[in-house]
Every structure is written in structure tokens, then in C-alpha cells.
């Protein structure tokens, strides 16, 4: 049962990551690409860490997901702020 749920979470995470990379490829501006790329971490990695926890890797897997979930907004903000500052020159 948990193995099937872990497999399902892996499939969903892969779909989300595909959409994120598709957004990164197709969107023209950094500001828009940040929206797509943040989902790869915040949704994809978190779902995969949940799947790893369900599949028996222990609570350490949740740590990886929690870290990416907490730091993805910081990365996006720092990139957006730097891009904003560069555009003012």
C-alpha cells in the first residue's frame, strides 16, 4: 500500500518537474522563469521526499524536502532582487 502510494507520488512529482522545466524553457523573462523553477523544488522535491519516507528511507528524507521548501523562496528572492537592481543601470 505505501509502496503504491510512493510510486504515485513519484509520478506526480515527475509531472510537476516536467512542467517546471517546460516553463523554464519556454518563458522569456527571468521573472517568469522564477515562478516555474520554484515549483520544481517546492513541489517536486517535497513530494519525492515524502515518497522516499513512505518507501522506507526514514525521516531523513523529510529533512531534505523541508530544507528545499524553506530555501526555495530565498533563492528566488535573491535572484529577483539582483535582476531588479541590474535593470536599473
Amino acid at each position, binding site marked *: 500500500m505505501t509502496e503504491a502510494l510512493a510510486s504515485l507520488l513519484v509520478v506526480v512529482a515527475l509531472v510537476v518537474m516536467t512542467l517546471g*522545466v517546460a516553463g*523554464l524553457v519556454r518563458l522569456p523573462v527571468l521573472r517568469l522563469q522564477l515562478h516555474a523553477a520554484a515549483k*520544481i523544488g517546492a513541489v*517536486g522535491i517535497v513530494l*519525492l521526499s515524502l515518497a522516499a519516507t513512505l*518507501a*522506507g528511507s526514514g525521516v531523513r528524507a523529510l529533512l531534505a524536502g523541508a530544507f528545499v521548501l524553506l530555501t526555495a523562496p530565498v533563492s528566488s528572492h*535573491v535572484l529577483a532582487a539582483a*535582476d531588479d537592481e541590474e535593470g536599473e543601470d
Partner: protein
Amino acid sequence: MPEALLAVSVVWIGVLVAATVVVLVRTSSPFTRILTVDTIVLLVMAFLLVLAIGRDDGVFVDAALALGLLGFTTTLALVRVEREGEER
């Protein structure tokens, strides 16, 4: 986890990394390049987590966690370097 799903996932993450590398080569904005590198790190983390599920070995989870830490600090450092030039 079925073997077929493991194989398909690994190959598909490879395809995603290849697509992201194409973006890295083709873009002209430095911050898009930094974002692309961060995305590749996240995709490799995903690859390691998928392997942890498929091989049922906890060492991949440790590797994914370490890579996540390094990738985040690398992104912050690259943005700092890009903003302030190479003097620091």
C-alpha cells in the same frame, strides 16, 4: 517501486537535465544562467531521491541532503559574485 517506473524516472530526469542545459547554453542573462544551475542541482537531487526509493538504500537520501545544502549556498554565492563583480 516497480523496476519499470525506476528506469523511466531515471531516463526522464536525464531528459529534463538535458533540456535545462539547453536553456543554460542559449540564454544571455547571467541570472537566468544561475537559475538554470540551481534547477540542475534540484533535478540531480530528485534523481538521487528516486534512486533511494528504487534501491531502498538510505545513502542516497544523505547525498541528496548534502547536495541540497551545497546547491543553495552555491546559488547565493553566485548571485553575490554576479552583483558585485569579481573583486570579492
